[in-house]
């Protein structure tokens, strides 16, 4: 596996193109511009979901438009930005001018869930359209049934918020205020919405400035050749990677706990067919679309497939449209993974995207057993909203600090507290201090949860225990969304699954209630919410885990003495007192005996 870790992006080279050095310089320049877009957004936006959490992504398209560079931001936006840019081109065609800015969010016009609002700024060089700068960001509220725009009760997309088709919002560099005011009026926090749209536009304007400098340097004709080379190179690299995967048909299946209305589990089934340098992916076995908000628009489903491939092949494949050329995805219209309007879709970017990714990983683990992770946690937590008693202002907050663990790999333990699979650690959790400054609650604890990571030769990453108590005389509006209360992160090759998500209200008090993963919950003032989040799945037989590592896990309070013995077959010399765990010594002989017996037991 050492080779896998060695392949770092710094070593990227562009063999086989006309001027490899220039192509490499331009490509990295585009990635740098892409990152600068992200920094601008972080630094200027008002919502913590952008400034602290980074729930947005930036991309640069060429004139076609094809994505040419996309490194900044959350993986869950990978394919959707690309489809949004094409939607703007299809709608406006020749009617795109310098100084224009476009907006789009509708799931059935090139978006995914409505909260993800995409801003697109065309970049002209002497009247020639050369680039489109894209910023796609998850706004805290875009209207709909409940604040936070995750409405478990919605049965139509109309109930999930304002739908925006491709729409011009700047003309000649100036905002078209009557249009913008119409949009703002349909959200619960109009000022915040507009401020953050401005931050999105600023991030695109930074790209415009830098892309113009880049074009000054190379001139449009040469730059266009270079951009073509970048696409060709990416396609070639992806084809080489696919070629390394043995030809064959590989299946994977994952289940969602339910759609919020029914407890029936919902199936995502995917099939990968590898044929030489091409990959054909179908979802023929997926369930039909559902009544509740887990339906996944095609852009979202395709994203999940791309993420599964990009994370398991070599890391030096550039992330752009060229790389997706050899991947052919089909999904039946009217199914969970390609729904028909007006099916609701809000939770698809989390729950369904995670389930699709899991199904893809399980399929790919059969083709590339040494590269694919065990299951990552799924999201499970509330959006919380109300009037902040300290300022009298309306707020919406997601409980990001309840993130779960990541799945183990064939050569290393999973990441603890890293978040759901589809975001791959791309969301940064806010600090407890920023959270309490921003929102009316007090945090009781926020730390790793023992025995949450799935046991394995390599252990799943730990989830957390996290509790917040609400301040003020009015209880906030509290909407649960997420999954993973029934289906835990899967283990691979003998590894055990991670723990289940467990959201609770007032646990340990007489009012204790277990919360649903999806649903609106009535709160009283002074209630507290806790989540015990999923650990990741384990990889390989836990009886093969190095006992020294098990001892470390016990010392670190991540694995209990009971689990060490029962799951890992590790025995310690005389059970020590809890406060002097550092004296804990392995009993090598007893461990070996116990493990041998356990292995025999398993064979029988």
């Amino acid at each position: 596996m050492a080779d896998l870790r060695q392949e770092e992006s710094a070593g990227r080279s562009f063999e086989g193109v006309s001027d490899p050095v220039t192509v490499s310089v331009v490509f990295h320049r585009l990635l740098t511009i892409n990152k600068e877009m992200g920094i601008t957004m972080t630094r200027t936006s008002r919502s913590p979901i952008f400034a602290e959490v980074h729930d947005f992504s930036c991309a640069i398209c060429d004139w076609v438009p094809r994505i040419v560079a996309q490194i900044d931001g959350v993986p869950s936006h990978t394919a959707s930005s690309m489809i949004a840019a094409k939607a703007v081109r299809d709608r406006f065609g020749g009617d795109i001018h310098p100084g224009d800015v476009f907006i789009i969010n509708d799931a059935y016009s090139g978006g995914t869930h409505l909260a993800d609002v995409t801003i697109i700024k065309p970049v002209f060089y002497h009247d020639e359209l050369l680039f489109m700068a894209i910023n796609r960001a998850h706004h805290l509220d875009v209207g709909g049934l409940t604040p936070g725009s995750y409405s478990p009760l919605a049965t139509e997309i109309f109930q999930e918020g304002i739908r925006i088709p491709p729409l011009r919002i700047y003309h000649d560099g100036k905002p078209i205020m009557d249009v913008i005011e119409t949009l703002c009026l349909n959200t619960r926090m109009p000022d915040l919405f507009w401020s953050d749209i401005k931050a999105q536009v600023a991030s695109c304007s930074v790209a415009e400035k830098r892309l113009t400098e880049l074009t000054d340097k190379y001139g449009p004709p040469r730059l266009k050749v270079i951009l073509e080379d970048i696409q060709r190179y990416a396609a070639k690299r992806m084809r080489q990677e696919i070629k390394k995967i043995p030809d064959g048909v590989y299946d994977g299946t994952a289940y969602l706990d339910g759609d919020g209305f029914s407890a029936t589990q919902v199936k995502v089934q995917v099939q990968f067919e590898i044929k030489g340098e091409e990959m054909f992916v179908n979802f023929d076995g997926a369930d039909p679309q559902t009544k509740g908000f887990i339906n996944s628009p095609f852009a979202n489903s395709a994203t999940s497939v791309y993420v599964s491939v990009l994370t398991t092949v070599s890391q030096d494949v550039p992330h752009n449209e060229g790389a997706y050329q050899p991947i052919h995805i089909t999904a039946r219209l009217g199914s969970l993974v390609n729904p028909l309007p007006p099916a609701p879709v809000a939770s698809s970017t989390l729950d369904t995207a995670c389930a699709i990714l899991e199904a893809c990983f399980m399929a790919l683990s059969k083709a590339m057993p040494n590269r694919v992770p065990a299951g990552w946690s799924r999201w499970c937590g509330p959006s919380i909203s109300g009037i902040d008693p300290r300022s009298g202002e309306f707020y919406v907050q997601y409980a990001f600090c309840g993130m779960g663990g990541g799945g183990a790999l064939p050569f290393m333990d999973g990441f603890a507290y890293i978040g759901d699979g589809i975001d791959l650690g791309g969301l940064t959790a806010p600090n407890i201090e920023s959270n309490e400054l921003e929102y009316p609650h007090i945090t009781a604890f926020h730390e790793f949860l023992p025995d949450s990571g799935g046991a394995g030769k390599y252990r799943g990453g730990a989830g957390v225990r996290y509790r917040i108590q609400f301040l003020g005389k009015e209880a906030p509006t509290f909407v649960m969304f997420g999954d993973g209360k029934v289906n835990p992160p899967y283990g691979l090759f003998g590894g055990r699954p991670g723990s289940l998500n467990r959201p609770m209200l007032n646990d340990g008090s007489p009012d204790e209630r277990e919360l649903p993963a999806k649903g609106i919950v009535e709160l009283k003032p002074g209630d507290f919410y806790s989540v015990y989040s999923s650990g990741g799945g384990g990889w390989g037989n836990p009886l093969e885990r190095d006992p020294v590592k098990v001892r470390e896990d016990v010392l670190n309070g991540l694995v209990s003495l009971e689990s060490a013995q029962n799951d890992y077959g590790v025995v310690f010399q005389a059970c020590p007192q809890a406060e002097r765990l550092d004296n804990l010594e392995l009993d090598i002989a007893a461990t070996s005996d116990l493990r041998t017996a356990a292995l025999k037991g398993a064979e029988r």
Partner: protein
Amino acid sequence: MRYRVGIDIGGTFTDGVVIDSEGRIQIFKDPSTPSDPSIGLINTLKKAARFYHEEFSQFLGHIDMLVHGTTVATNTMLQYKGVKTALIATKGFRDALEMRRAHKEDIWNLSLPLPPMIIPRALRFGVSERLNYKGEILTPLDEEEVRQVARCLKAQGVLAVAVCTLFSFTNDVHEKRIKQLVLEEFPEAFVSISSEILRQIREYERASTVAVNAYISPSLSRYLKNLQTVLKREGLPHDFLVTQSNGGVMSASFGAEHGVMALLSGPSAGAVGGKYFAEILGYPNLIVCDMGGTSFDVTLIKDGEYTMTMESEVARYRVGIPAIDIHTIGAGGGSLSHIDEGGMLRVGPLSAGAVPGPVCYKRGGTQPATTDANLVLGYLNPDYFLGGEFPLDVEGCWQTMEDRIGKPLGIDATQAAFGIYQVVNSGMADALRVVSVQRGHDPREFMLVAAGGAGPIHASRLAQEVGIPKVIVPRAASVFCALGMLESDLKHDYVRTYWTHFDQVDPDSLETTFCAMEEEGMATLAEEGVAEATVEVERYLDMRYIGQHHEVTVRLPKGRIVAGKMEEMATAFHATHERLYTYCEVDKPIETINIRVTIIGRVPKTPLAKEAPAQSPPLEAIKGSRQVFFAEYRGRVATPLYDAAKLQPGHSFSGPAIIEAVTTSIVVCPGDQALVDDYGNVILEVKVNG
């Protein structure tokens, strides 16, 4: 005669640069002595005293300023070799350091593991106490619990304790009390609290910074205090100075408690040296790389300026201290090579240091290091290392190379050495790409400054690989950092939170706060012996639109702050916001977050003297020839050896060649053209592909 002295104690060598009162520069070098680094330092200074024909104590008495840069802090972090450290946090919140805000450096790369934990969970303790966001006490500190934890830490052999509790930046009462209590139970512990090191919001960043400070400071403190004692005893009349990450210097006593500020002590001096060089030579775009025994540091200088960063990552730990933007990897002459489990050749990050050092030092080293590979390949002269003072063991080196690397891979010693050379070069080339190509700079527009004792051996190949057309090997290449130190100004940064709506700022109170911070800085500078006349003050205000989460640092105009100036400050903020982010909102309210003051005590600079042009042909500088390995010849070839001391401005010749100086060796590869400029620097024109 009076002297200014710069001393850079690296992992392998102690470099000294002396500038006398007439502006003449002399270089001295001696092996470092890690068990007691003062020995190497004294040896180097004694060498200098002998050179100037002075008694040692007399020489020390003539030193006006002694500046010291140390890589102790950096290397401790890079190799994760700090002391056993514990963390005390608010109960229920002990994991922030390891949670890392759920951040993964490379989102798409699933297989990059977390860095080793400098404070494992077993040594992280929560104690009952809690403040709210206003700094009001919600739960009082459980003092008995703190005492118990302290006793437990003592029993477990912990040496340093970091303390980071929630909201301590608004009220430091609990952190201060925890420090007292721990010291009462455990007086020999080094205790560092977050409110003293980085008094700003965000507990993860604060915890990480204070954890790093606790982890590295005891080693640094022991080291600096020892030096101080020895130098005083030998006759140095005043305190010496230590270079900081911010490119300035601080007094040694201050540095002993603030290891985190010296994290990039050595390399930052190199960056300052690079900037100085850029000014004098008139090359505005430089990539300065410094390869010593243990680390390889890269700084990019564009249009004559390096960039500063308010927050950086060292060894993958977040550190919120202002620093020059330097990229560091663990690769140097002492980097040890081995064959890993998968049968692959690996170099670093562990280093042989000065003791035992590479195998060829014959001090007990058993594992081949980069220097050993360079010796086997013929790039180093075994009889002219440190000008011949330090003969190298060629035979032992070849044997070990063959046994440890060659045999397992089924190749001979030369091939093994070349393998090491290639692996270490590819890592360094990646580091050069990170600061150039990956940040959007075209390497073809830069010159590579090769510094450090080992830098010039590898520079031409690195330039070739990355596409940099020219390499400058400064005359004082091996002691570039030490030279840079003498060009560093005394510099102290102060920050205080001043969180208020901008339209409610009282100009008088702002002025008073600035003055108080400046007085503190002036006092420190006075202790450091700086005359008031040479002091410069820079005032900054961190500002943002209300509701934003990140600040813009705005430099304030000189002079007293009065009501009439507030408008000008607001305008400066809007303008900066627009310049950085393409827009501003003049109608939106602003708030201030932090006040920052930088106090600089200017140090007089010494111009480099031009040398007389060559009177004789370069052939006369050839002192012999040696069989040297070059990939172009797929083997060894008779290569001329030039004596650096005999090269003069205007000399020019083509590779292959080796230029031997007392303190380094310059490899001129086949196809390269070497020429000597007016200052005695060697410039290599490198054949770049593509």
